[in-house]
């Protein structure tokens, strides 16, 4: 039977609309990357990577202290967040045969949805107010809290994919359960767990809102984690909303550095996952 022209036209229109949607979605991404490269590379130089910010009006200076500060904060976040997240994932996958597992799973999802600025407020009143000053440590803890749910759920999902007969084989050989969980299950799932950790890392690396009243920012070198510390996203924010052209240029350069760090992490994750995490064993 011949298709009516009307139905054929509708079919074609739908295809065109879908393609247009795909283009419209990809377009801003390309625009952002093009502008980052155009404006960022122009402002990027050796001084930017090695010097601290100059006072307003002086040309030059850089964000070296912010890059290092971000490194410190992210290191603290990873050291706190990843072990707790993985432990929680192990509990959910290997030990939670009760209602409490569901409660933890639900709270992890709640935590995942909490706006980052709200976590900033909570850490401010829990740590900063008590310590009486802003610090890299409090910023790291705020970011760690944001990493935990992602790491925990990724670990759980990966562990659940490990076939049970591997576990049973280990237990059957008389290997204690903790050893089985760590050396057999977690080891088998390690590629997926690392993927989850890096995704969580990439997600918090660009976070600004929780650092506003925890790490606070700093114009000078600071390597002491109990003092206010500069962070790359914070510095970008401050420079972007400032009225100075020189600072705007530096904000673009800082954004380029930040995005390069994050895209490298995401690409690494992508390569790790396409290589196949569990495909060999399951």
């Amino acid at each position, binding site marked *: 039977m011949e298709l009516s022209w009307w139905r054929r036209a509708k079919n074609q229109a739908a295809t065109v609309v879908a393609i247009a949607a795909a283009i419209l979605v990809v377009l801003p*991404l390309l625009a*952002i990357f093009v502008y980052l490269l155009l404006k960022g590379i122009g402002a990027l130089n050796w001084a930017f990577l090695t010097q601290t910010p100059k006072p307003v009006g002086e040309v030059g200076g850089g964000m070296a202290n912010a890059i290092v500060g971000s490194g410190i904060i992210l290191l603290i976040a990873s050291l706190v967040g990843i072990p707790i997240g993985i432990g929680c994932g192990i509990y959910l996958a290997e030990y939670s045969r009760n209602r409490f597992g569901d409660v933890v799973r639900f709270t992890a999802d709640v935590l995942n949805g909490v706006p980052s600025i709200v976590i900033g407020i909570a850490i401010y009143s829990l740590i900063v107010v008590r310590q009486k000053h802003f610090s890299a440590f409090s910023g790291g803890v705020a970011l760690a809290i944001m990493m935990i749910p992602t790491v925990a759920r990724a670990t759980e999902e990966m562990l659940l994919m490990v076939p049970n007969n591997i576990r049973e084989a280990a237990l059957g050989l008389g290997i204690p359960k903790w050893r089985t969980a760590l050396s057999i299950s977690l080891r088998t799932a390690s590629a997926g767990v690392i993927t989850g950790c890096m995704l969580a890392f990439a997600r918090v690396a660009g976070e600004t809102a929780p650092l506003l009243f925890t790490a606070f920012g700093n114009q000078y070198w600071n390597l002491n984690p109990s003092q206010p510390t500069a962070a790359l996203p914070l510095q970008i924010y401050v420079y972007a909303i400032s009225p100075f052209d020189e600072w705007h240029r530096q904000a673009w350069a800082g954004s380029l550095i930040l995005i390069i760090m994050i895209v490298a992490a995401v690409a690494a994750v992508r390569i790790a996952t396409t290589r196949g995490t569990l495909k060999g064993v399951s």
Partner: protein
Amino acid sequence: MLDSEHPRNTPDPVEPAEKPVISIPALAQAAAQRKTAPLSSALERIRRSRPISSRLPDAAFGWLVLLTAISVFAIVVLVVWQLFDKSRLSLHQFGIGFFIGRNWDPVNGDFGALPFIYGTLVSSFLALLIAVPLSVGVAVYVTEMCPMRLRVIISFLVELLAAIPSVIYGLWGIFVLAPVLRDYLQPFLAKTLGWTGFFTGPAYGLGMLAAGIILAIMIVPIIASITREVLTAVPQNQREAVLALGATRWEMIRMGVLRNARIGIVGGVILGLGRALGETMAVTMVIGNRPEISRSLFAPGYTMASVIANEFSEATGDLYLSALVEIGLALFLVTLVVNACARLLVWSITGGTSGRARA
């Protein structure tokens, strides 16, 4: 997103589950789908019979992981308790009037949150209005229409969109999007749709419209990835059945796919809404930051998250601080409800662990 690529325990109706290397009989397969290792009671008894020195590390490890699980629970409790505790002053002083007061006057100690609530709601709904058709379109294109190679590329690009930090969206919004809006889109909208009252007044570029557009770009990846996941969960024979009746491809998508997936798509949309409501930095940078309620989308506004970001570290006086924390509390409760609804909807479609928020 990435985790949608991972094969699940539950057999995927569309793509056949990975073939196990060792083929296990049906009973064992059923056991493998259970969450925890089924330890036969005999094995359990053997483990119990072991000397205390070998049981101790086991118990210690069990307690350790339990402790980390409890800590997740404790963090949420602590956050909620802090929010309630620190906003007590403002809760007492203003009561429910806080949420309908239109005045935000830190100097005279008069605080009403309505302009911020209005700004958050309007910018988020504007974002949904733009993002939902785009993300559903892109998801349909990726799952139903496009060639395999392009599918991987587009999914990867959309994934990258989710990885861009919000502060970079803000930077781009200020220096690229806002001038474009000011010079091209806003004059055009004022001329064609000015009579509606939504597109009047001076075109600054920065304002509610810019915030809505930036938010839309940011939530497209969430809605698109969940929609894609839900669409792939629609059984292949649904498609085949509709096609066999002589439907065109579009009719197949409309009747066989979208109709089956609509609840899951709504779940994804609500999840996107949750992200939009709590988004801080990008919105703060482009919305203009003025606590006013204006009908025109060209006018500057203010959102709950951005007032906290801007004023929290400069707030003088306990009442001011407490009022800001109360806004944070309200934001937390709203996103909690929104996310819970979304998750239930998505879970009811994809079943269990999948469809988890990337936000």
